[in-house]
């Protein structure tokens, strides 16, 4: 069942292509003008949910399998073979098996959703995603009653992913959600951005998007989904449990041990963009019920 969640904005609010492609140039011009004119800062007011430029979204990425620099994924991800693509769905499901992407997409309804995206590094974007609800995919394979968690795994292709040469994290990248989080109507599997198919650097051909959690939870280029009865491994949590909790909900009150999470900088505003306050659950208050009775500073 698609369309269980809608934001106030509709597709017509998505910036037309000729504008989003040009915004950077326009802003660059403004910034250069402001500096030349001796002004302190250019007045670029970003509307709350004005999507970022396609250029920014596809060039400023964290996808360590392609390198740790923000520009590395855009440089190397074209090497990733995304067709054919299949996803192994196993564990506590009624119909386990290897599903081809076409097979899955033929049963899903693709919709557009404009979500805030907040990175654990304290920057953020607004992304107009295309995709379907994860709940629909889970229904397709039939989740058994004992399943309490969903585990995800990214492709592991040393020949196509130069970043795998370095032990930055334990490969392959894995992530997980509690089943009620996975079933929440906000949780989606993305297949595109700005109505274009996902590029490798953004997690082609299929990735998770959980907008109330830090970006690293939204695992990219998924090849395996496993339903389990115990908490699955999550890469950053494995690497450093003190800094990255299993839940990793966006929470301005719980700082990363090494930096504050109370503010964030929206990407794309140039040299004089100010920080803005970070919102609880990244502004998606409708998920608060999932965590009722939990101490979110303990289960961070």
């Amino acid at each position, binding site marked *: 069942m698609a369309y269980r969640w809608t934001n106030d904005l509709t597709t017509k609010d998505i910036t037309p292509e000729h504008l989003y492609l040009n915004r*950077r140039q326009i*802003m*660059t011009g403004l*910034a*250069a003008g402001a*500096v030349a004119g001796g002004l302190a800062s250019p007045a670029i007011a970003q509307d709350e949910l004005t999507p*970022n*430029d396609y*250029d*920014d979204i596809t*060039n*400023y990425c964290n996808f*360590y399998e392609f390198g*740790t620099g*923000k*520009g590395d994924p855009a440089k190397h991800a074209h090497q990733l073979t995304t067709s054919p693509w299949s996803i192994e769905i196993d564990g506590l499901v009624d119909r386990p098996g290897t599903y081809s992407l076409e097979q899955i997409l033929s049963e899903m309804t693709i919709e557009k959703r404009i979500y805030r995206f907040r990175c654990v*590094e304290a*920057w953020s974007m607004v992304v107009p995603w295309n995709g379907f609800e994860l709940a629909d995919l889970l229904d397709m394979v039939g989740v058994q009653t004992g399943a309490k968690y969903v585990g995800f795994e990214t492709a592991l292709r040393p020949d196509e992913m130069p970043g795998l040469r*370095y*032990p*930055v*994290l334990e490969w392959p990248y894995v992530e997980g959600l509690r089943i009620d989080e996975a079933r929440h109507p906000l949780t989606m599997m993305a297949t595109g951005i700005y109505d274009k198919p996902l590029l490798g650097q953004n997690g082609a051909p299929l990735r998770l998007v959980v907008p109330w959690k830090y970006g690293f939870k939204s695992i990219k280029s998924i090849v395996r989904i496993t339903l389990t009865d115990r908490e699955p491994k999550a890469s950053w949590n494995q*690497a450093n449990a003190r800094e990255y909790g299993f839940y990793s909900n966006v929470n301005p009150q719980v*700082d990363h041990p*090494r*930096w*504050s999470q*109370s*503010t964030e*900088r929206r*990407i*794309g505003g*140039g*040299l*004089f*963009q*100010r*920080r803005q306050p970070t919102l609880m659950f990244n502004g998606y208050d409708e998920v608060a019920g999932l965590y009722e009775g939990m101490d979110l500073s303990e289960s961070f």
Partner: protein
Amino acid sequence: MTIAHKINGLQRYVPVWSVYVMSVIPGALFLWAGITGSSGPEPINVLERSLGEFALQMLILGLAVTPLRIWAGISLHKYRRAIGLVAFGYVFLHLLVWLVLDVGILSQIWADIVKRPYITVGMVAFLLMVPLAITSNNWSIRRLRRTWKLVHKMTYGVALLGGLHFVMLSKGFQLEPLMYLGTVFGLLILRLPPLQYRQVQRN
């Protein structure tokens, strides 16, 4: 004529003041990239990091002067003060970008300095550099005599803290910051008296 001789000979044509003039170039390029947007959609972070990294490179170059003379016969002694002052200048700009463009919120700045170990470490390194920069002149050397040498050994600590600052702020296991810290360690080990003594004997 060996390479070392050639380099030493070239120094006659490269006055110290030209180091100061040239030192403006990287900073201007970093800033220009940020203004024009060619450094990407998050220019503040890139500017902050480029300035910090260049400062660390200058600190390392400063530390390399003595080992280069002992082990390779290359004498860059004449430029050492300039290198150190340029490093200080870039650390200062790095700090300024963090204060004004990056954080920009007074309460958060103070909280970060106190609560975030990597920022505390960076801040301490900067504060240790202040007396070094102030006393980087002939008058101070004459006035302080032996104390001057002792005080300026603090450069070792500053470079170690700078390298540590970079390692501490990285996510996951990353090679680049570790290479900087390793280089600093290496250059300090080359200064250990037994190593230096043996090399001087051999010469």
